Structures are given as C-alpha cells and as structure tokens.
C-alpha cells in the first residue's frame, strides 16, 4: 500500500512555529472546511481518468486557513506509484509543481491531501501514518476521502477527516501496547473526527454554471432513483465479513496472549510458594536458605500484541456498518415510492 504525499518540511517549519504558539493543542483548530467547486471537479476527473485500474488515487490539496475554517482552493494529482519507476522522486515532483503554481498566483500552501476509496475501506495503517505526518507538520491539515462508487449512485460523497488530538498523542509516543492504549482511554469512535464540508463558488463560476446548464443536455441517467441494489449491497457485505474475520483473528491472538500471561503469573506464584516452603523447611533443619533468584529472568513475560491494528479494524468495521445503514435507508425509501407508484395502498 503506497504512502500519501510527503509534506515539505522546509516551508512548513515556519508555519509550525506560528501554529504552536497559537491555539492550545486540545481544541480543534478547524471547525469547517470550505471547498471550491473547482477542487471537486478536479478530484472527480482524476479518479475517472486514472483510477479505474488500481484502487486508490491520491493528490495534494492547496489552500489557506481563515480563522477557524480551512479553505481549499486548488489541488493537483499525484502520479501512480509503479514498481518499475524507481527513479521517480515524489518530493521533487511536489516541489516543482508548487513552484510553478506559485507563478500563476495559485495558493501554494499545503493544507492536506485527498484519496479515493473503494466501497469505504480507507481506515488503514498507511492512511494513519500519512495523516499523522501531515498533521504533525501542519496542524490544520485534513484528508479528503472521495468515494466514486457512491457518487456514481447519485450524489457526491466527499468526506473530510482529521485525527483527534488523543490519537495524535498516541502516535507521537508510538506506544501501541495494551497498557498504553488503556491509559489514553481511546476507542475506535474517537480516532477520526469528521469535519463538515461546505462548497463555495465565486460569482464568475456561478455565471459559468448558468451557461452550462442552459447549453448542456438533460441527464438521461437518474442513478439516484435506481432500485437495483443487490450488487452494491453484496459487495459491501463481503468486505464487512472479511473485516470481521480479521477482527476475529486479532481477538483470538489477544485472548491467547491474556491466557499465556495469566498462566505465567500462576507459574510465578507456584514457584515463589515452593521457594518459601523450601526455605522454611531448610530453616527448620538449620540449613542456610537458598538464595533468592531473580524470577523475572526466569519467567519472561510474553510479547504483548500491538493493539493499534485492532483499533483500525474496529474503525473500519464501524465505517462499513455506517455506509450500509445509509444505503439501506435510502433503498427503503425508494421501495416505498415504488409501492406508491403501483397504486396499491395497504
């Protein structure tokens, strides 16, 4: 799984200082995201043209921060990663692109990145790492997830996510053991937070849209009112089942770990007891007691499995369930409409 684009540390270092001195780390610096219509169109086009083969297309978002909202005014796509393209330098590409865009007065400040997703499966380690490195360098950055399959079904599906401050702290310390996570008290529901999106267009673009509407033909595909849902539902359920299987395995591993740990504790206790008994026996016989051995060396505690993957899987399962529920509620509505159309009232 390829990583997202890397932030430019040189230009961002100065911004980090100013950001650090500003808001306190517990408040969310971004309450709302404002996207230009142009960005939406570009993302759609990028997936449509380049994303049919592989599953994921990525790109960088450019814009600026205005008080408590993030304005995204432009974006540019990232070429696909191919194994035989070893000499392709991502950072080079990014720097050149941003320099060129600066010449034509386009905002050249990184504010995040976007990624397309397949049926809603985007909660993964790679995404987490990329978003963490982005958010670490630029506090207000977001990741825009574009779901092309859901969009093709009738309405644009674009969501913006950030990592919660708690998750940021955990990632910083890289402490993924069960104790660490217990301390931070983190659940899968507070890993990502969704930021509301608003689309904004300038007046001139509105004029353009008016012109387009007059000149273009009426759409002959009204996908939103399509009744056939089983294909999409099957696929989603299949992915959900796979994830639940993964989760099962993970839980199994954790259970064996717990069992091993408790067995070890028991063994330790037994050993200590035997030692004490022997010592009292020896004392009663007047012999010197046996030296206290270092028990921790004898009973090495088993390796605790990292819990971050479980969290991610749980988050993904949650996401799938949300999507499925949305989809079924829409379909129920459509079925009732079809019933009304037949004229049979029950």
């Amino acid at each position, binding site marked *: 799984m390829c990583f997202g684009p890397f932030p430019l540390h040189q230009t961002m270092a100065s911004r980090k200082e100013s950001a650090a001195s500003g808001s306190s780390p517990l408040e969310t610096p971004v309450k709302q995201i404002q996207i230009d*219509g142009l960005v939406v169109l570009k993302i759609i086009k990028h997936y449509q043209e380049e994303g049919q083969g592989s599953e994921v297309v990525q790109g960088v978002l450019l814009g600026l921060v205005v008080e408590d909202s993030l304005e995204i005014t432009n974006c540019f796509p990232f070429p696909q990663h191919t194994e035989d393209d070893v000499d392709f330098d991502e950072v080079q590409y990014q720097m050149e692109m941003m320099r060129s865009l600066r010449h034509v007065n386009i905002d050249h400040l990184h504010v995040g990145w976007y990624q397309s997703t397949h049926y809603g499966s985007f909660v993964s380690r790679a995404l987490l790492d990329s978003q963490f490195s982005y958010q670490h360098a630029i506090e207000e950055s977001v990741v825009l997830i574009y779901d092309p399959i859901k969009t093709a079904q*009738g309405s644009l599906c674009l969501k913006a996510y950030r990592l919660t401050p708690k998750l940021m702290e955990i990632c910083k310390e890289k402490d993924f053991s069960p104790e660490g996570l217990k301390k931070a008290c983190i659940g899968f529901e507070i890993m990502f937070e969704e930021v509301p999106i608003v689309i904004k267009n*300038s007046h001139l673009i509105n004029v353009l849209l008016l*012109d387009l509407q007059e000149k273009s033909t009426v759409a002959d595909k009204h996908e939103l009112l399509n009744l056939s849902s089983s294909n999409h539902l099957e696929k989603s359920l299949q992915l*959900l089942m796979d994830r639940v299987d993964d989760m099962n395995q993970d839980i199994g591993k954790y259970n064996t770990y717990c069992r091993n740990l408790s067995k070890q504790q028991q063994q330790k206790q037994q050993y200590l007891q035997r030692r004490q008994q022997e010592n009292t026996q020896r004392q009663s016989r007047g012999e010197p007691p046996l030296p206290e051995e270092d028990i921790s060396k004898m009973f090495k505690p088993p390796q605790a499995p990292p819990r971050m993957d479980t969290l991610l899987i749980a988050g993904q399962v949650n996401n799938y*369930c949300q999507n499925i529920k949305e989809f079924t509620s*829409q379909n129920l509505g459509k079925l009732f409409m079809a019933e009304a159309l037949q004229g049979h009232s029950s």
Partner: protein
Amino acid sequence: FRIPQNNELSPPAGHVNFLLIREIHVANVASTGFCQPPTSAGGQQHESHGDLRSLSSSLFIIILHFLYEIMAVHGPVVKIHPVVLASIVDSYERRNEGATRVIGTLLGTTDKHSVEVTNCFSVPHNESEDEVAVDMEFAKNMYELHKKVSPSEVIIGWYATGYDITEHSVLIHEYYSREAPNPIHLTVDTALQSNKMNIRAYVSSQMGVPGKTVGVMFTPLTVKYVYYDTERIGVELLQRTRASPSRTNGLTTDLAQVASAAGRVQEMLTTVLSYIEDILSGKVMADNSVGRFLMDLVNKVPKITAEDFESMLNSNINDLLMVTYLANLTQAQIALNEKLVVL
C-alpha cells in the same frame, strides 16, 4: 482564395443563407485586405488602411458572431469538460495586477472528428500594445509534470480569456502550432461583454492570394459540453450554490437526497400534467410525437398483480431490514469488545 472545404454531407436547405453570408463576408474581407500576417510586423498594419479597415474589422467581428449563432462546422467538434472551464475562470480571477487577459495550454485527446479537452493549465505571459512575451519554459515544464500523472493527454491547443482575437493571438497561435498539429484556440469571455459567458473555439487556416503574403484566419468550431457521469453529479451539486445567498452549500445526507430526487421527478410530472391539461382544454395543439412519448412513459410502470408485487416488496424490505439489523449488531459487538479489553 481557398475556402475551407466542407467535407460533410451538404447542409440542409435552411442553411443556404448561411453559405451566402459567408461568401459575402469572404468577399468583403478580400476587398479590404484584412489579413493578419504571421510575422511580428503587425504594428504597422494599423495605420495604413485607416477607417475602412476598422469598419471592415468590426463588420468581420459581427459576421463572425452571427455565424457562430447559426452553425459552425468546419473542422473537428470540440468537446469540453466543465473542469477545464472552471480552471480557466479560476486562473482569470487570480491574474496579475494590470493583466487584462490570461492564457494557458489546453490538454486532451484528439479523434478523427473531434477533440476532447480534459485538462488545462495557465501560463504566465506579458502583453502590451506592441509586444507579447510568453513563458515557454514554464509551459514545457508544466506539460512534463502533467504528463507524469496522465500520460495519455497531449497538447491540443491553447485558451485565452477575453472577447476578440487580437494580433498577439496570432503569434501565440503560431507558437502552439509548433507544439501540436492544428491547434485549437478557445476563448472564454470572462468580462461578460454580451451579458453571457461566450465560449468559442477556433482553428486557424491559411488564407491569402497565392504568391503574395499569406494571412491567417480563425474559423469557428462547434463547442459541446461533455460530462462523465460522476462529473455530471458533481456539477449538479455545484449548481445548487447559485441558489444560496452566501454562495455556499453543504453536502446532503442520505434520505434527504432521495427526497430531493423524488421532488425533481414530481416537478417534471407536474409540468407534463399541465401540458396535458392544456391540450385537453384545447389551448395547445396536440403533437403526435409527444403523445407517443407519453404513452411510453405510462407503459413503463410495470403491470404486476397485487399479490406478486406485495411479495416482492416484502421480501426486499425484509432483506434490507435484516442487513440493517446485522450492521447495528456488529457495531454493538465491536463497542462491547472494546470496553471488555479496556477492563
């Protein structure tokens, strides 16, 4: 004179007057020697012909726009994606102080009869009364970068904002004809000179008396807008920002979308119904082809017996409810699992 050949079928009778007007305009053009030489000696032409030239140039422009209204098919059809136009408008809004127009490169794919424009980027340039400078290095660089992302896009022309075609355009067009065979020139009127944003495309053709200086004429082409399906959905969403006073619009949630789609269908049905009422009451003449479409529409609702429909509906609803139940169950399960681990 070499008039560009029309290699399609002969145009229908209604367009005869169009051809006639073109003859007139070409003759007019010839008589006043309105030629644009491809060299950079354009400055001198202004003074030498004076009033007659300005009169004929304005006449030329008027006729050109009139032509555009009727028909303009002498070359490939230009299909534009909305993302290109939005990009052009955006770069116009971000132009440097003092620049009246913006130019840039168009990328896309060509076909035998059509050219599809799918991407563009703006190129910095300086324009003054008598000279024009375009940053060609920049254009080359950007094209290389773009090629890395989408290797199938090639340079197919260039765009400029503004209403008319100036002498500088000819120079720039010549530069672009070195980059691409037969480049397209697109103009987007962002200054809204005729209360509309006119989007026009041109292709250049040679013109002149053989043996003497050769001129260049821009012939208009038909412009069509094409959308991918997802693009159309995106544009529909963007259209809604026109309605709100703050020019903003949030993304709607699940059931609301179905409701709005149903609302749209209902509107369409109301329009059709009012039309039928008008016909029945005799206000409007009945049209047979529309009548056939209406028959089609009514027959599209499938005739299923009541019990069959009941059973189909119920089984579908049961499926969906079961899936919802399972999804809720899964969510509850993972939440529980989490809490147990934390214990």
